[in-house]
């Protein structure tokens, strides 16, 4: 069934059509929240709250934008509120990493430097922690762009702001992230090739 048909049915209160309609966004919304707060249970509840809100507001959807843009716009306020709620909590998290905990590279016979799977997972977790420490004005944009793969245009529509603002927030967010991560990860240990080879699990 096409999206417009599902929307029409969901508007009339058909839960099954609504579930079909949102099925492709569930994982994305859940991951955005999870990457923001780092708590699976909270991510579960908050992301479901987003879909309930979307369900309640569906009759207001006029099709002036794409459904996905509209859905993320509705979700934006919840994301931002939750981000505010967690920001103070995040600030108190200390990264107690010392040099010994920095990631190590292993040399293998073919000459490439590769990072072991366990260490990559550890690194990913550190990146998540670093993202969670970002100031609230940057966190949403950084997650949408880097982790969820949205374009500048899409983020601008969702945020109801200009592309310039999105780019500026992204740039400043990345600077913050670099600063946070440099206390956790030794960048000189990595090169592009090793990341290309092994980073994406």
């Amino acid at each position, binding site marked *: 069934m096409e999206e417009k048909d599902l929307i029409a049915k969901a508007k009339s209160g058909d839960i099954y059509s609504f579930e079909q309609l949102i099925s492709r966004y569930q994982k994305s919304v859940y991951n955005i929240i999870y990457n923001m707060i780092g708590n*699976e249970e909270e991510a579960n509840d908050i992301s479901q709250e987003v879909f309930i809100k979307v*369900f*309640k507001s569906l009759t207001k959807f006029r099709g002036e934008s794409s459904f996905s843009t509209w859905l993320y716009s509705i979700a934006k306020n919840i994301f931002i509120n939750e981000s505010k709620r967690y920001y103070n909590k995040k600030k108190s998290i200390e990264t107690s990493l010392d040099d010994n905990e920095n990631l190590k590279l292993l040399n293998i016979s073919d000459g490439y430097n590769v990072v072991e799977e366990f260490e990559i997972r550890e690194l990913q977790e550190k*990146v998540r922690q670093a993202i969670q420490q970002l100031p609230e004005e940057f966190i949403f944009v950084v997650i949408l762009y*880097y*982790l969820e793969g949205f374009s500048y245009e899409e983020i601008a529509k969702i945020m109801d702001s200009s592309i310039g603002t999105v780019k500026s927030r992204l740039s400043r967010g990345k600077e913050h992230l670099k600063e946070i991560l440099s206390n956790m*990860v030794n960048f000189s240990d990595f090169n*592009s090739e090793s990341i290309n080879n092994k980073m994406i699990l």
Partner: protein
Amino acid sequence: MENKKIMKEEVLEKIIRSVKSKDLPNSYSSELHLKLLQTKREMHQHNNKISDIISNLRYSLFKPVFVSVTTFLLFLIIGGYFYFQGYVKGIKTSQGQVTGSVISSVLNMGTEGVLRINFSSPKEQKDINFEILLPEGLCLVQNAKINCSDKIINWNGNLNLGKNVIKLPIMATHEGVWEIYITAKKGNTVKNIKRSVSVQKA
């Protein structure tokens, strides 16, 4: 120096993008489904309240017209009630008594009962979808085992002319007054039924 900076940027972006997305928890869809059902009910109740207010307003303004319309609606409601109704019926207590056709039933905690849903249909109807939503205090009994994880029971089938009965073995697990929501759906037609079951200490 500049090269190093570019390199660092590139590495940083790749590190960020390397974060793998998490899979949804197993119970995610069923939990969301329950919440959506609850939301739909609340929205329905809210709309009914608004309709009541409008009706009251109309009543005061257009009394003669309102009386005729109300009489007509009453006939429709009563007719609809007999056309398609559901009961929580015949729930057995621990003493083996049968409570009969009652709307509110009592079940002792830790005992098994049978949820009977009666549908009276004036004609044969095909492809009816039934959805029964069990509350926290009641669990489904399947193959002599208690199943408390599946709270939504779906059944699709046909209604015969006259009396139709769906039986569902259930177990009372928590004390309280619990509501069972039953939805019968065909195409765009939906019939929602709510019945209460009281679970008391044995």
